[in-house]
């Protein structure tokens, strides 16, 4: 049996070398669809972070109950229950955010990152490590989503975190530019692909320069 991974390597994997959004390219549907502005991105990123942390913890706690044969349906059930609970909570206490993100909150269930981490990590490690792994994977997804959202909103509308007060109860985040004409392409779906492609290209360029095989 291998030694369990260190906290440092778990964090490094989720945030950088195994990043869900940038390296594994999992969960692209929400990544591309909800990154049209920074507030939506932050909202869905936080919901996903919470979801993957909780599902990882729950699955690790239940790993001796689920066994090997029926583990996949058991994971599906745990993930669906946790995400539904998060959706109910958002509807109750952040109704504005729920109105904007709508279908994308229940769709967290289908984010392959959750199932992937459940199978590859949480079902094989103790709850503390599983929770840290979920947190690190979720944070990795959050920063990529938030970066793309901020890029698209800044380019497309000249503002940053517009609507944060109404949707997240965080009015101090909002930044509005002056008279910016707007750049429509950034806000349209194409802008999401362009932003993600630029980020991936930047990462590759950086890796090539450092002499890491691409």
């Amino acid at each position, binding site marked *: 049996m291998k030694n369990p991974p260190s906290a440092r390597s778990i964090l490094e994997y989720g945030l950088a070398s195994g990043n869900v959004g940038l390296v594994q390219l999992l969960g692209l549907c929400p990544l591309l669809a909800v990154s049209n502005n920074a507030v939506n991105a932050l909202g869905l990123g936080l919901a996903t972070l919470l979801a993957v942390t909780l599902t990882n913890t729950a699955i690790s706690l239940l790993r001796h*109950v689920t066994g090997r*044969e*029926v583990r996949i349906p058991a994971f599906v*059930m745990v993930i669906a229950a*946790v995400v539904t*609970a998060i959706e*109910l909570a958002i509807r*109750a206490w952040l109704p504005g955010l729920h109105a904007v993100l709508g279908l994308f909150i229940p769709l967290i269930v289908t984010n392959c990152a959750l199932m992937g981490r459940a199978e590859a990590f949480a079902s094989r490690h103790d709850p503390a490590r599983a929770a840290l792994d979920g947190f690190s994977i979720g944070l990795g997804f959050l920063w990529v989503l938030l970066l793309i959202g901020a890029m698209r909103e800044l380019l497309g509308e000249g503002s940053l975190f517009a609507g944060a007060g109404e949707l997240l109860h965080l009015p101090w985040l909002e930044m509005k530019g002056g008279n910016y004409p707007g750049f429509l392409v950034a*806000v349209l779906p194409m802008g999401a692909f362009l932003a993600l492609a630029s980020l991936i290209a930047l990462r590759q360029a950086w890796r090539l320069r450092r002499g890491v095989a691409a």
Partner: protein
Amino acid sequence: MRGIAHNAVHAALRLGVVALAAVALLAGVHLLTRGPIAESERRAALQALELVMPAAQYDNDLLDDRVHVQAPAWLGLPSATVHRARLDGRPSGLVLEANAPDGYAGDIRLLIGVDAEGRILGVRVTAHAETPGLGDRIEERRSGWIRGFDSRTLDQPPPGRWKVRRDGGDFDQFAGATVTPRAVVKAVRKALQFVQRHGEAIRTAEPGATLRFDDAPAP
């Protein structure tokens, strides 16, 4: 053979335990959030109504005092909800749901507030799929265009000028998007005509009643 059956039962039991845990979690969260969700939905519905019906215009429970109207030729919807505002017991206005079915990308859903004299208190677009950057300027947060309906009546502008400028009317169109504002202007005009023709029946109906109007506005 016995071993396989034993394994299957065992697996089913394991799944059952997980299902029980999931049900317990969801039941708990549901109990906890049921109240706040109902409250926030009610508040959101009322906030939407208040955009087109200023709070000073009524003192009744706007959300509960409503009738269902089946008047597809007038409101563009198979069934629309109309909220009735009252001040000191007297009718002071109506909030109508309406639909402009002929937008550039299909339906444009509207909420229209009208006072007792048939004057528009406000119009808001509640849902649409118009082109971002062109047709979406009918949204209040994109441009002030939708506020151009405030204080209008069926005589102001006169009936022949309830159109966009390109068609010889009084309402601005957008550069590159005429279809969208044309559809909205038409839907608002038909809603005003509906209030003029059938407003009395709606104001006097029992709360919660369903009314049906099969006639159509003059073209």
